[in-house]
């Protein structure tokens, strides 16, 4: 009973928050509702016995990612309206709904065939966090290290793109000056 109530409550909250994110004209409202939606999504992870994933969701999304967005919005004038010359709404809703349905069907086809076996079964003896640690540092060690290198590369790229040599180079110069420098 508790699970049913929690599922429908958080499903409704998440959908409302993300609809606000997608439809809001103001970027600040959109970001706030996105952060709220991320926290509500972590509730699903707790309901699904994926405790560690829920904690990571809260820390990474509402901690790191939202802070990044907030910093990025300080660089821009987000109060300025972006012109939205939208196509007729019905067609977009219909097409995106159908595409999403198609994607779900394509991805679910192998699972429906009931040939799925648990590769790394969960056990009741140890907690979720321990089980995640055991699988992550044995079977998924190489992808884990590759993900670490990818995050390092992304961090360096973010620092260089956003901050390095703000007074010259690619950031403040107009196109002609950059082309002149390239011709020299």
């Amino acid at each position, binding site marked *: 009973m508790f699970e049913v109530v929690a599922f429908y409550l958080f499903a409704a909250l998440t959908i409302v928050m993300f609809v606000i994110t997608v439809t809001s004209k103001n970027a600040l409202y959109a970001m706030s509702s996105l952060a709220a939606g991320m926290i509500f999504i972590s509730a699903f992870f707790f309901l699904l016995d994926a405790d560690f994933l829920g904690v990571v969701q809260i820390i*990474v999304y509402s901690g790191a990612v939202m802070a990044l*967005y907030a910093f990025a919005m300080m660089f821009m004038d987000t109060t300025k309206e972006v012109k939205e010359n939208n196509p007729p709404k019905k067609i977009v809703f219909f097409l995106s709904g159908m595409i999403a349905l198609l994607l*779900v069907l394509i991805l679910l086809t192998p699972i429906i065939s009931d040939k799925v076996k648990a590769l790394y079964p969960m056990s009741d003896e140890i907690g979720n966090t321990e089980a995640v640690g055991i699988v992550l540092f044995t079977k998924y060690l190489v992808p884990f290290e590759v993900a670490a290198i990818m995050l390092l590369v992304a961090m360096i790229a973010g620092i260089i793109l956003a901050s390095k040599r703000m007074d010259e180079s690619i950031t403040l110069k107009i196109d002609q000056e950059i082309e002149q420098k390239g011709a020299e």
Partner: protein
Amino acid sequence: MITLTHYLVLSAILFSIALVGVLRRKNLLMLFFATEIALNAINIAFAAISKYYGDLTGQMFAFFVIAIAASEVAVGLGLLIIWYKRRGTIDLDSLQTMHG
């Protein structure tokens, strides 16, 4: 009783919302938000399948999806800031520099 289908339908609804956002909005920041929503919708599906098949692989994939989302935001926002400094706008239509 909540079954796997409930979670998958929820995931599909959230993914549809994200898809509508990607298709409709002209603000580049909104496209990033919509991408985050899409990745989160997929994460719910991964975690639900992981639970109902008693397999941890789904959760592992969700972790890697979160890592990819974090790096995507870092690089994407850096590029977005440069674009804003050069053009003074984050309108998607301003990216069309090659049209004839």
